[in-house]
């Protein structure tokens, strides 16, 4: 891996008590804790997933892949997987498109006579947009639970104020047709500002001359965004996509606040809620661990696909240029 990132900087001297004691304390103690609390549980989960353990017996009975077979035939679990996959596809796409568009407006949405400049007051927009990211997600979802309230909520208040009477007592979170979309809106809302800040930094990292050149050649702003900013932030997009995807597969916090019971007709039930219920309410820990493994496999597949496709695209665009 990256064992010798900067070999010239690393010190290589003989072992003294001073050095050895430092390494043992600085590395040994934290890594030991890290192994016990973080890495060991992951491997244990894989083992428990092959047992019928309920958590109350001292021994775990090995049952092979029975848990996985059970999950494959469990319509509720499959439904939760489906819902999680919808989140996985929709949340990152919406968040990235929206945050990229806002970042473009901030960085080159201003007047472009003379040097390419950002928008005046851009720091205000950045501070405001980033704000939801620092608010605890559970609070965001509690607030939006109230915003969506059929009779006393902010959303229906605004809609009826605009003359849309049909919204008078519409239960956004209580209707199977809108519950999932309403949930996705909240998650996207909470994350756009964070990725906007990321993209602003990435776009500012593109040399100013490139923008100048594009402008002189007569490229409009949309053209600039598509042809210069998009390739310029490519690697940031890939990282962001992976983070967002892994997060969307989790999404537990938001749903715990918005739809703790899986929503109308289980339309918003996600894998993590199923894991939580199976483990800590039903006491079927083996089965819950199998669900956890499915979740992990999904995230690894997703990460692999994003990075694989990214590499493929990079290679193709390189060939086209040649």
């Amino acid at each position: 891996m990256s064992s010798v990132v900067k070999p010239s900087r690393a010190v290589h001297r003989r072992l003294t008590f001073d050095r050895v004691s430092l390494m043992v304390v600085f590395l040994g103690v934290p890594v030991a804790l890290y192994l016990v609390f973080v890495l060991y549980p992951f491997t244990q989960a894989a083992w428990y997933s092959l047992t019928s353990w309920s958590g109350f017996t001292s021994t775990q009975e090995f049952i092979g892949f029975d848990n996985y077979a059970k999950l494959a035939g469990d319509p509720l679990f499959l439904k939760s997987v489906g819902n999680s996959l919808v989140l996985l596809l929709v949340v990152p796409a919406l968040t990235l498109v929206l945050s990229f568009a806002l970042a473009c407006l901030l960085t080159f949405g201003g007047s472009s006579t003379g040097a390419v400049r950002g928008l005046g007051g851009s720091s205000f927009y950045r501070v405001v947009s980033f704000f939801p990211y620092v608010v605890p997600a559970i609070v965001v979802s509690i607030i939006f639970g109230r915003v969506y309230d059929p009779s006393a909520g902010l959303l229906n208040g605004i809609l009826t104020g605009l003359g849309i009477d049909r919204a008078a007592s519409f239960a956004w979170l209580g209707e199977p047709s809108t519950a999932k979309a309403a949930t996705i809106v909240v998650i996207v809302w909470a994350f756009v500002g964070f990725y906007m800040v990321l993209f602003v930094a990435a776009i500012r990292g593109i040399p100013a001359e490139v923008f100048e050149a594009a402008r002189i050649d007569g490229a409009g702003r949309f053209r600039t965004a598509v042809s210069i900013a998009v390739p310029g932030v490519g690697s940031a997009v890939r990282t962001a996509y992976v983070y967002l995807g892994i997060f969307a597969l989790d999404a537990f916090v938001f749903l715990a606040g918005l739809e703790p019971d899986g929503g109308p007709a289980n339309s918003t039930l996600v894998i993590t809620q199923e894991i939580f219920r199976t483990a800590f309410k039903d006491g079927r820990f083996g089965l819950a661990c199998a669900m956890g493994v499915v979740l992990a496999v999904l995230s690894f597949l997703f990460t692999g696909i994003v990075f694989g496709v990214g590499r493929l695209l990079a290679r193709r665009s390189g060939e086209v240029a040649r």
Partner: protein
Amino acid sequence: MSAVTTARTRSASTAPGAGRGPSGERAVTVGSHTVLGIWSLIVLLPFAWTVVSSFKTTREIFASPFSLPERWQFVNYVNAWRTAGIGSYFLNSVVVVGCALVLTMLMGAMSAYVLARFSFRGRGVLRFLIVAGLTFPVFLAVVPLFFILRQMGILNTLPGLILTYATYAYPFTVFFLMSFFEELPGEIAEAASIDGASEWRTFFQVMLPMAGPGLAAVAILNFVGLWNQYLLPVVLNSNRDNYVLTQGLGAFASASGYDVDFGALFAGSVTTILPVLLVYLVFQRRLQGAVAAGGLK
């Protein structure tokens, strides 16, 4: 870069875009401000509404979403603080997040220092193991973690929560700080050792202060992350007396269904947001800088 060249050659032949005169420029600027202004409103409105609602009586809350409170009163805050237990949850949060933050920063800085500046057998493996911890879904680990803590007798205790918080923030902290330590000039450490300083003294008195800006950035990111943590306390801390703020508020919101004291719920939300909001407003430049630097790696 290659895509840029093709874009340039292609767009050079097209006529300059419409609306490139001074008035067109102004229209674009106004348009950008309008879109960003609407977005800011969408972000701020729910919070503003929450703050206003936290001063209303439950009857006022249900009468109209827009009405201002007849009398701005703090009774909701008193109720949230006392009846809903937000006061003691707040204290638990401060203790848990404070201790975990100190612990993870200390462990993270120490490990990052050794991993960045010492070369030894197995360094690559360790680096890999630590970065790997960032990519696993935490949900896979929580079930076994529950039993590990129970076996150690620290399930449902604040120390148990502190240790878990610190160890789950550890890989991120190490990952982030390694690059800071790698970039510190080696000459200064050498000078310190020639002057007879031990390795320990070199770290605490020379290298750690020099990594100050990096430490501060990571500490702020960690503070926000730990303060907002929800899953770990919900799973590992079911003793009501030890609830942290996010967990307590979540329980309060879902506990009594339609009997929820909505005024107190709004007040509790404001109370939970306020500390992170203050930290954010004071350090927003540094926090956004850290996010931008971390995200591009």
